[in-house]
């Protein structure tokens, strides 16, 4: 019994030393912080009136904690003037990175990979006179005025809107789909994975 303990401690000791040396060499490194270019935490919608002197309307949707449980916070409803033409620019940012980081502005990346991305829109019926209807989230072929494209199909970072002549309130929703090898002339909002889905309140005054 005694010899067993002595013997096993000797072997144990030897192995422990070897094992410890192996481990010490591997666990000394501290983890490195990762860049996280894929997160979009901030969406800014800028409606710019096409007439000179018009004041742009800007609304934001921000999810400060990324994947955390806090829901996104809207800066307020989109308030547009009746009977006016606007150009909508959508910009996307990754708030988990520094502003100086080249990956901070996600918009440029979406533009560069335009053949894999597409925006879809929906809104309460008749709040816009152009495009008519309620948007193309339910049917790809429905009217939306895309101003940009990836060379073949529209993207949707720039779109054109004319508000209706009468006032009203409702919702305005946009969806960014990632459709690698799936984007076609008929691929709708159900195709691919959703990178962004936000719904604002909309007021026509």
């Amino acid at each position: 019994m005694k010899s067993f303990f002595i013997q096993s401690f000797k072997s144990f000791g030897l192995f422990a030393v070897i094992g410890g040396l192996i481990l010490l060499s591997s666990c000394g490194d501290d983890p490195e912080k990762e860049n996280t270019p894929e997160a979009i935490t901030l969406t800014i919608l800028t409606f710019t009136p096409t007439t000179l002197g018009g004041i742009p309307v800007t609304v934001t949707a921000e999810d400060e904690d990324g994947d955390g449980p806090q829901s996104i916070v809207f800066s307020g409803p989109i308030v547009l003037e009746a009977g006016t033409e606007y150009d909508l620019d959508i910009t996307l940012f990754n708030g988990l990175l520094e502003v100086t980081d080249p990956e901070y502005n996600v918009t440029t990346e979406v533009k560069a990979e335009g053949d894999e991305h597409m925006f879809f829109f929906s809104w309460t019926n008749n709040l816009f006179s152009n495009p008519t209807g309620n948007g193309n989230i339910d049917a790809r072929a429905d009217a939306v005025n895309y101003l940009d494209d990836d060379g073949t199909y529209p993207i949707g970072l720039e779109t054109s809107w004319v508000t209706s002549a009468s006032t009203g309130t409702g919702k305005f929703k946009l969806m960014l789909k990632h459709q690698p090898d799936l984007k076609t002339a008929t691929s709708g909002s159900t195709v691919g994975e959703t990178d962004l889905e936000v719904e604002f309140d909309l007021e026509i005054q």
Partner: protein
Amino acid sequence: MNFTWACLFGLALNFITAVLSAQSCSLSLTGIVTSDTGEPLPGATLVIDDGKQSTVTDAHGHYRILKICAGTHLYKIQFVGFHILSGAITITENTSRDFSLEVDVAQLEEVVVRAHQPLTEHVHNSSSLNVKQLADAAGKSLGETLKEIPGVNTIQAGPGIFKPVIHGLYGQRILILNYGIRQEGQQWGAEHAPEIDPFIASNMIVIKDATAIKYGTDALGGVIVVNPPELTDKPGLGGKFTTVGQLNGRVGTMSGYLEGGIKKHDGWGWRIQGTAKQAGDYYSPAYSLTNTGAKELNFSAAAGVHKEKYGVEVFFSRFSTELGIFRGASVGNLTDLVNAMERPIPQSTQPFSFDIAEPRQAVAHHLFKLNAHAQRTNGEWRLQYGYQRNDRQEFDLRRGSLLKIPALDLVLQTHTLETEWEMENTNGRILCVGLTGIAQDNANIPGTQRIPFIPNFVNYSGGVFGVAQQIFGKWKLDAGLRYDYRFYRVKGFDYRNAYYEDKLSFSNVSGTAGATLQLKRDRLDVNVSTAWRPPHVAELYSLGVHQSAASIEYGLLLDPITTEVRNISEVNFRNEQALKSIATWTMERKRLQIIASAYVNRIANFIFLKPAGITVNIRGAYPYLRYDQTNVLFTGFDGTATWRASASVKVFSTASIIRAHNLGSTGELPFIVPNRFDAGARWQQPDGSRNRLFFEMKVRRVMKQRNGPRVITPRQFLEAAENDIDLLAIDNRNFDFAPAPDGYFLLGAATGFSVKTGESRLDFRFSVENALNETFREYTNRFRYFAYDLGRNFLVSIQYQL
């Protein structure tokens, strides 16, 4: 030769007496055939005069031969498991004659190879797969192979990823011993299959006791022991090669090993083994399952010496695989999930291809092991050292240039060291004491450009145990006690990508007590044991979207309001603790064998994902869940019955029944395997036949799971969220996105034969699975929301044994 002469003599006598007695052949010979202990033998065959007349005994062992001629006849009576009884009988009138057969012990033994590994000595309730059963399952992954055992099931992620489940528990709650070493990989993941090549095994044993004693923590459900064959020491070359082809998935698998002793070096042996496998997309009865292909390349080598007084062995294995993750299961938010569940054909379904595209996994597992044992006068000393390295990379559908960069890149290195001392005295008392130690390091490889799902950590664990066994007449009793300590140092980044670090320690005692009663033909095993499990860092710190689960998970230590990492002392955390009682009755009769197990497993502080609410982030709405603790109770029954209808025909059936109760108020537990019943029959040419031709048919019935959680469809979640209603904030009991699929029947058949070529043998096996091309979904397949399960499959396997 004697027989022929006796036969001729008998015939001559017959003729003479027939002529002499002038009676026509209308006499009768009746009686009963029993064993030497008086048991009647139904189905025994009596052959008169080398086949001139024959009959079979009825259910009560009675036989009747009519229209037998007066005279002397030769008879031969046989029944499987008994020595053939032959002789001569003279009949002059209607005769009654009883026969008694002698048991042939060698034939009666089932070909169940109990491991001679010392590790499994103190086990009471277990099931095993022997070499033949493993050969029948050749080409399947470890989880699929083990599924044949009642009480064992699987959790799947598509057709290529199987995690074994013992009595309802899987992942971190069961232990897998790969050649005696605890398999350490990223088992916390529901899509992480164990990285073990089933071809290295000559038998597999599933231990259903919650026996933590010799192996350490985590064995709440049980232990799976994968045993390679013992090293040979016969000089000369031995080996086996197997090729399997499967139509569904166009899977080709080749595996083989060579082994031998070393001439002039008594007791030395070696073995090298390798497996290569390639699969393309599998198909369901309605459509192809795109991106479910896989590639595997494994290698192992062993060498050692075993003498009377000592032995040393060294083993190395490498397992590597690349697996496609079913493309149709890629979803983001709840809207994506609605679309995926409502599509009649999964998204991105393409024609068959061998290509493995994103999303995919690439895993490699290396194991190096050294073990030694030495006999002393009063006992045996054993030592085992293992080093494992598990590399896991997971690739998602990422934007642009990130596509080829892994979203998860982990390296897990583990050193294990065990030593034990076992003494046996003349009274049959065995005492074993031992020490175990583990040192483990988990590192995220930088460059993924994503916040790591689990942090880096270092884990040091140690344990000390003692087991005692004593034989009292027909009883074999044993008891054991163990103390474990585990220490973690964690370093990671939280949801804001801010650095945190933490130190955690856990310790507990576990115990076991069991008894085996061996009667003449029956056996009773009972065992009561406790086991505990420290939490995995994934359950404490993980944060993120679980791909294809369309929900966000938060670890136990994340603050519910701020999502910041808390110290464990701030949370009311307790170790998971299981108390399992199990009893198994084994009944052996001449023709019938029944094995029935019943068990109750109460687990306190069971860690599970509790729904917490709906969050709307930039990508849309997601349910989110937090790891929490509750008490649960698992009860169940497994049974196997085998009836040898005749020397060639065997009828068998199995049942696996399980019921899980959540003793807390958070609703029924999800993904508990539904009840399952199998029945089949096998016809086989008797042993000793040249070609061993067989034909087998099997039916499996899987019931619908009626005790699952309530259903809230993604559409219901979205409609409520549009009206600003958070369905989970109102009622946070467990939920499922879809109702449990209907129960189903699967029909399978197999046939085969052997060809002997000198000393070697070639075995052929042809089989069909899901012969009726049944359309079904498996409740425990996480991808059941997106697609049907596999359609009909044809398999061919050829095995060559040197």
